[in-house]
């Protein structure tokens, strides 16, 4: 007898890939993914348009705190406020800021008038500038001068390193958290989405009653394997298409609008070395270098994660997570014959997945705690949780144990699924009880 698996896989694969909904999702996905990268850059670009603000300062010194920058340009006006407001109509200024003389004693009196609403970032900027200037003024009244203020001002930063066998590497728990979270969500989403595809495919054949014709031509186990492999291939197709298209869109946009991605020079930082010995000055300079670009730290941390290994582990956890869930979903699709009953059986096996997502935050807070270890070993949560934990460098034994448990669970779930599937697809009517499913599993 010829091997019929390729014929089954081909049909099941094309059946999904040719669907309009699949094509739409496959094409929309990269647009959404690319937008996540591009839109924030675009928005920050739009905001770079300067708001020109005329300042009427009756106190005569508070305006000194207002420094013009990329988003706002301040011009001191020597006009009464009523005449200044008229300048708005002449379109000489986008906004007029009024600091009354009463400001020193009642800080809630300043006002701003504008043609269009002033952006929140400009407002925040103005408020903090006025606040610090007023505080300086008040401190000066107590005899504390500016120089003392600058010297007691401390910008605290703890730089994060990993230390293993005498090698230290820059690490960033923020980067690890974000990366871990994103990868965990992707695994969760993929396992769920492709697992349900298998379920729908099994149910369709059972409900339209073509399945008996098919299993009189091929063994039911071949049909089941064919479906699961086909959907896995669909998943990999979609995944690869998304990555390629997303990169193409980003590169395309970058080519079309080079200005958008222009690197913004960070402001130079002056280091106060006064009264420090050379070693301390050097340390300070190093620290400052890290601060030079806010993304520097993150980039160094990111480059210290082993990316090819991470991708391989992602594929491993995705494939086995998918295999466990899809075999169980297939068993459910075979056991029931309507949607309500499906939900009844789905609930117990989807709860661990949801639990895994919910527990990510506590796990990130304590990556080596008991909860983390349990969830990264438990096979129904380990694909999601492990993806989240890998950026935190989990111990090797934990990784290997988790992988072994996952593979063994797959063997078991495949066995159970094959048994239930074989009998379930020919059984119609009442939803089987768990006891009944158990007799199906035991039956020769």
């Amino acid at each position, binding site marked *: *007898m010829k091997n019929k698996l390729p*014929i*089954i896989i081909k049909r099941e694969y094309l*059946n999904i890939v040719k669907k309009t909904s699949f094509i739409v999702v496959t094409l929309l996905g990269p647009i959404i993914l690319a937008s996540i990268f591009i839109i924030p850059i675009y928005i920050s670009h739009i905001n770079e348009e300067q708001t020109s603000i005329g300042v009427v300062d009756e106190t005569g010194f508070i305006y000194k705190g207002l420094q013009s920058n990329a988003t706002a340009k301040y011009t001191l006006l020597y006009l009464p406020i009523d005449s200044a407001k008229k300048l708005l109509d002449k379109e000489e200024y986008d906004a007029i800021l009024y600091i009354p003389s009463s400001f020193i004693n009642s800080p809630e009196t300043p006002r701003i008038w504008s043609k269009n609403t002033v952006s929140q970032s400009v407002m925040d900027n103005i408020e903090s500038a006025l606040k610090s200037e007023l505080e300086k003024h008040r401190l000066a009244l107590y005899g504390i001068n500016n120089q003392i203020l600058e010297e007691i001002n401390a910008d605290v930063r703890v730089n994060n390193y990993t230390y293993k066998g005498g090698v230290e590497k820059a690490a960033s728990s923020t980067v690890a958290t974000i990366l871990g979270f994103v990868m965990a969500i992707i695994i969760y989403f993929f396992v769920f989405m492709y697992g349900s595809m298998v379920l729908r495919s099994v149910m369709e054949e059972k409900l339209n*009653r*073509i399945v*008996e*014709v098919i299993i*009189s*031509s091929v063994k039911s186990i071949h049909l089941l394997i064919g479906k699961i492999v086909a959907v896995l291939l669909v998943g990999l197709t979609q995944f690869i298409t998304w990555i390629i298209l997303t990169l193409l869109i980003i590169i395309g946009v970058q080519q079309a609008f080079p200005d958008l991605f222009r690197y913004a020079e960070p402001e130079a930082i002056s280091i106060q070395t006064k009264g420090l010995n050379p070693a301390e000055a050097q340390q300070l300079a190093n620290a400052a270098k890290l601060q030079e670009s806010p993304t520097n730290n993150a980039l160094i941390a990111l480059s210290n994660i082993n990316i090819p290994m991470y991708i391989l582990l992602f594929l491993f956890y995705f494939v086995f997570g998918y295999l466990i869930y899809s075999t169980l979903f297939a068993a459910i699709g075979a056991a029931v014959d309507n949607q309500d009953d499906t939900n009844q059986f789905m609930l117990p096996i989807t709860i661990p997945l949801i639990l895994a997502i919910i527990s990510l935050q506590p796990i990130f807070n304590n990556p080596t705690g008991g909860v983390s270890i349990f969830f990264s070993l438990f096979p129904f949560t380990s694909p999601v949780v492990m993806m989240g934990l890998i950026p935190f460098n989990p111990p090797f034994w934990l990784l290997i144990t988790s992988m072994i448990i996952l593979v063994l669970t797959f063997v078991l779930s495949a066995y159970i699924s094959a048994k239930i599937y074989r009998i379930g697809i020919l059984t119609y009517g009442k939803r089987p009880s768990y006891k009944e499913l158990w007799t199906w599993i035991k039956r020769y």
Partner: protein
Amino acid sequence: MNNAIEVSNITKKYREHTALDNVSFAVPNGSIFGILGPNGAGKTTLLRIINNIIPPDSGEILLYDEPLSDKHMEEIGYLPEERGLYKKMSVGDQVLYLSQLKGLSQKEAREKINYWFDKLDIKSWLGRKVEELSKGMQQKVQFIITVLHSPKLLIFDEPFSGFDPINADILKNEILELKDKGATVLLSTHNMESVEELCDQIVLVNKSKLLLYGEVDEIKRKFSKNYFEITFADPIDDEKILNWQNNYSQFVISKNEKNPNTISISADIPIKSSELLPLILQLGEIITYREQLPSMHDIFVSVVQQKEVNNYEK
């Protein structure tokens, strides 16, 4: 090789009931073999076992003198009672896929698809989706899927359900043609008329047990009620009939209400025509003389009900 299928002592139990209890029979090669029985008698289970879809608990099946195995799947064409098609797939793609699963190459499959869709004059359906076809049209497609790979053994479960009389006749003729070409046909149906028209042999299953097994003609004779119908050249008057009845009280004679030329005679004991004919000739000149054999319908009903009466008495 005389038998296409030999079923020996097949038993299949489900959790709460026995579907088949020690069933044995043989299907001669090249015959049309009927499997009869009321709903829930175990017919579908039997057909699934012969199709190698489910295994029996005990017993043995020989197909062409070899134990049933996976390799036989390509030699069988099976039209299940609960049948369907992929709704969103085109008829042509669907038939191609299913015939490839039966081991045909793409090329062979395409040739045969052309042949069959031409033969049944439905070639224009090939590009249409199944959901656009009526139920009867879908049945025709399913029939083609069953026979397309020219299997040696054809298994039809209720093939006529859903067909109008014209299409049912087309189907019957196709089945007879397949038989002439050498195929063995296993036919499960509740349509007793088609059993009489098509089947050479039958088994009757009820409540998991085999009740009847043999040639259709033989079974009919066995169930003969010794019932004869005779038409005379002239009407027979009542007095003559009354006299005859008095002389031969071992028979029951009755006159046909609608046709005064016709009478019927029955008896509790087997009657030989050579004994009966001279006696009837006394009544007048005979035009037709016919032994009324029971229909398969009557046999089915009486066997199944008799069994139930027996069970009740036990």
